[in-house]
């Protein structure tokens, strides 16, 4: 795809923007999660898809067991170091566009178990996370809320231009290296391309 054609297309602003609207509308209303649960939060995730909360109302009850057909990975639960490579691999095997919701304290940061030697301190060390839901476990409504947050996020994504999301950018990676099991820890312990410890300014 040459740049010329692309700029030609972007000139046809209306076409692109309606296309963008359609694209975003389709994506945001048909987010199929990967059937994937890790720990306690998974139970709340299941509860969310059950009758009382009914994730299906948003068209998202199609929990696909195969990553090939899923759009959304809900990392629901503690990611242990033993499990982390598998999670990353599953993420890699999902087709673009794909989203990640880190559900619960454990998935975001290791949560209550972050002091453990086998617990990964946040899945965002290896894969990019779109929405974080704090809570332990987050209430099912919180997952629904996160889901709507994700929908809004999708809605705001541009089809072209600099600010276009990762999956529309040919240069941006869509798979990330899978960490290896080391003698003491995962190797590498985090992926600097995805995650870097933020600067922490703190007054004593």
């Amino acid at each position, binding site marked *: 795809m040459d740049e010329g054609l692309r700029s030609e297309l972007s000139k046809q602003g209306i076409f692109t923007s309606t296309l963008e609207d*359609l694209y975003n509308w389709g*994506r945001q209303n*048909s987010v199929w999660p990967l059937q994937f649960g890790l720990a306690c939060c998974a139970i709340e995730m299941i509860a969310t898809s059950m*009758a009382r909360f*009914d994730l*299906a109302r948003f*068209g998202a009850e199609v929990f696909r*067991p195969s990553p090939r057909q899923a*759009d959304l990975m809900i990392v629901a639960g503690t990611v242990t170091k033993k499990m982390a490579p598998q999670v990353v691999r599953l993420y890699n095997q999902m087709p673009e566009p794909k989203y990640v919701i880190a559900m619960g304290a454990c998935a975001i940061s290791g949560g209550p178990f972050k002091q453990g030697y086998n617990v990964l301190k946040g899945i965002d060390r290896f894969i990019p996370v779109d929405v974080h839901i704090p809570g332990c476990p987050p209430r099912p409504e919180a997952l629904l809320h996160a889901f709507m947050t994700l929908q809004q996020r999708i809605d705001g994504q541009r089809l072209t231009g600099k600010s276009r999301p990762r999956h529309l950018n040919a240069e941006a990676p869509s798979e990330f290296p899978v960490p290896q099991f080391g003698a003491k820890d995962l190797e590498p312990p985090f992926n600097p391309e995805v995650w870097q410890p933020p600067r922490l300014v703190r007054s004593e």
Partner: protein
Amino acid sequence: MGNPVDQIFVILKHWLLSFCPEGYVPIASILLSVIPIMAVFGGLFALTTILERKGLGRIQNRYGPNRVGPCGLFQPIADGVKMLTKEDIVPRAADQVIHFLAPFALIGPVYIAYSVLPVGRNMAALDLDAGLLFFFAVGAGSELAIFMGGWSSRNKYSLLGAMRAVAQMISYEVPLILSSVPVIMLAGSLSPTAIVDAQGGHSHGLMQWHLFTPWGIAGFFLFMIAASAEANRTPFDIPEGESEIIAGYMVEYSGFKFALFFLGEYLGLFAICGLGITLFLGGWHSPFVFLEWIPSYFWFFGKLMAMIFVFIWLRGTLPRLRMDQLMGFGWKFMLPMTLLNILVAAIWHLSKTWLFPGVYLTRWALCLGILCAAYVWLGRSLAGNRSVGKRVYRFAD
């Protein structure tokens, strides 16, 4: 023939054809038949997916998709848009060519099976003398397509799923064909149109659907069981048995190819339901004479929707069988029953010539008796030496 509302599509087609230059009439006519079939059943697929999801939701005490568009009816469109824009992954180890061709091999045969289905009065695209045979023959093609999909993915689960699917489909194909043999015998034709016509008569206000005979009832149920196995529907959805082999032969399919497999499955379901309607439920005939005024295609599609609803209902209720039980059921129950049903149909036909009072009831009793006895006996033997059944439990204090 018939009222204009009933024939509106036929009339419309002819009217459109009248604009067509002479030499092109056949091809235009073909297109005018083909395109509506594809569009209508394609649309029905979209509608069914959402209805299924909503129906399952209701069975499960919830709403189901209800946010996208009015009542969530645009859900399939959104799904379609998403699938269309999804990345398409072909595993490295896969057999690229066959992986690509498999969805085509599924959609093609499944679609052309519709050409012999009469969806309304004068609304069969083709009237083949060996129409039913054509239908079955073409249906066999989908087995290979599924095998292609599963084998080419080179994934353990998908290969297992494909082998299961093929084994299942061949096992239930024989009962499927045999269960329609009684209808063919009594209708005396392999042409679906003729079979529907054969059910057009009526007595006491009730149409003479084949369903309203003892062999018809049995045949219908046997046919529908075989049909649900052929279409991989619960409780025979083992090829996709999520809890065992992830997504069966579709594990490695993503994006729209996956959607095509889905489409193929549903189209197969509609086709086989349509055939069931044609064979046993009087095709586009209404059940009662006084309802004949309702256009025929409404009847056909109404019956189709009703059957689809039953399938959804089943899907919401039943667990799935195990592979060995499935095969056992197919060969040790379905096949003997269908064979017996042929015999019963023959008896039913031959006993028509009997003449004594109460003959009608006697015939019914005889035929039903044979069928029921066989049913009980075969059902028992199916449970077999494992003594499957209700149990009593002890309690300790």
